[in-house]
């Protein structure tokens, strides 16, 4: 066995610390610079958001003519999206929604999709030094306070009209766990989309809590903020309801977790929901606010 000393590079993430300020900073700057060069995007102009409001991508836009298909076959779409995914999974929750959308067109990308990929690279170029920052002091006796946000983008997928679930869990002012995912069934209303997203989030919350307590850290019921009053009502009220009978059994998981006091579902203002940027494209103001709450920032800040 070999002691490599203080960890500064783990699984492709650089670790920088400021012990006096009680800060740790994870970033993939080197990796982002490498992929910008690999796809020859290091001189692109900069953009502020990975996917702007109003850009609607669908499989309908797949190549229609042979000529176009040949054009697209020369584009490294798949490998470009995969490299973005690697950054997203480790330190970049801010591009999670964009990567989720783009990865739906892996099999038949069209020009519009490739333009959108290039846009994410342009965004990364301006924020290549961004990473996750954690800071703060603990409560007494190893008490942690994980705080989650959940949201859904109803019918966000234009092809199958499915909704997008998104959640993020923060600890010490930085995101530790996040997801942006197309739901596996069509949600009939925004309430049901939010309800399913709440189930996804509560599954993760339960794991996080188990993980912490299995190691002697104290983490009580995890609070999850949700901006849909009706989804919260649905989750807290286990009564039978004619409007909910079509919801698959597995999605009632969140009810059990609330009853067992493992999860607290709390109403939050839509504009204060950090998971918003994980489920839909939002304005720059909203996006940068969400990004900041997720602890994604440059080193100087």
């Amino acid at each position, binding site marked *: *066995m070999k002691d490599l*000393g*203080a960890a500064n590079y783990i*699984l492709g993430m650089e670790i920088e610390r400021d012990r006096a300020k009680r800060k740790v900073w994870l970033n993939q700057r080197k990796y982002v610079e490498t992929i910008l060069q690999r796809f020859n995007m290091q001189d692109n102009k900069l953009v502020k958001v990975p996917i702007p409001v109003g850009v609607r991508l669908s499989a309908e836009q797949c190549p229609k003519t042979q000529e176009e298909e040949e054009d697209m076959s020369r584009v490294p779409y798949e490998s470009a999206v995969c490299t973005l995914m690697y950054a997203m999974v480790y330190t970049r929750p801010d591009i999670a929604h964009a990567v989720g959308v783009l990865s739906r067109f892996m099999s038949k990308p069209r020009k519009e999709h490739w333009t959108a990929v290039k846009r994410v690279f342009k965004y990364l170029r301006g924020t290549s030094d961004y990473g996750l920052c*954690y800071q*703060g002091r*603990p409560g007494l006796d190893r008490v942690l306070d994980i705080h989650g946000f959940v949201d859904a983008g109803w019918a966000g997928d234009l092809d199958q009209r499915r909704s997008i679930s998104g959640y993020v869990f923060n600890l010490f002012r930085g995101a*530790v*766990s996040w997801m942006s995912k197309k739901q596996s069934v069509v949600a009939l209303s925004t309430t049901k989309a939010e309800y399913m997203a709440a189930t996804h989030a509560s599954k993760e919350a339960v*794991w996080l809590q188990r993980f912490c307590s299995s190691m002697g850290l104290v983490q009580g019921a995890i609070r999850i903020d949700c901006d849909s009053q009706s989804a919260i009502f649905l989750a807290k009220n286990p009564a039978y309801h004619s409007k909910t009978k079509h919801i698959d059994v597995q999605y009632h998981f969140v009810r059990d977790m609330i009853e067992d006091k493992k999860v607290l579902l709390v109403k939050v203002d839509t504009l204060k929901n950090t998971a918003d940027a994980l489920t839909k494209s939002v304005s720059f103001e909203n996006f940068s606010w969400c990004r900041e709450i997720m602890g994604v920032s440059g080193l100087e800040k």
Partner: protein
Amino acid sequence: MVDEMAFLHKNEAWDLVELPAGRKPIGSKWVFKKKTNAEGKVEKYKAWLVEKGYSQLLGIDFGDIFSPVAKVTSIRLLLSISPAFDFEVEQMDVKIAFLHGDLEEEIYMQQLEGFAVKGKKELVCKLKKSLYGLKQSPRMWYQKFDTFIQGLGFTRSKAAHYVYFKLIGDRVIYLVLYVHDMLLVGNDKEII
């Protein structure tokens, strides 16, 4: 390559034996790699021997092959608490990790081109240690590590089998295993 061969011999990775009837030896090959550091500069060149695991047969050459892989969330979670608790964050690696696992199954390997023992070319290598590329190697290594680290007084997390911890009063050390590297987070250097 010569370094690696010396290391394999030192660790008694195999015996030379005659191949039993009905068994097929598996092939192997050399893999060469540049190792780079965080700045992208070349640190060293590595050569190691890998087994062609895809030619292994279920039930004969391997049984259970599951071994846990670290979830990046757990690594982030431990890193996120480190500034708040003012924990040390250290890294360790185990040289040629897989070699340390003992094999349960009998596996035969062809002798290596250029390294075959003179006059014994018809013999095959009966593997004793799990080499890279074998389907069960990660599992064998994990089991060996698990026994070793629990012997040192570490407890395995029930929610994540690749995370261990040790508590002594107010001193604590957390350990995340990811294949052959370890991340150590805690306020007690001495335990390491």
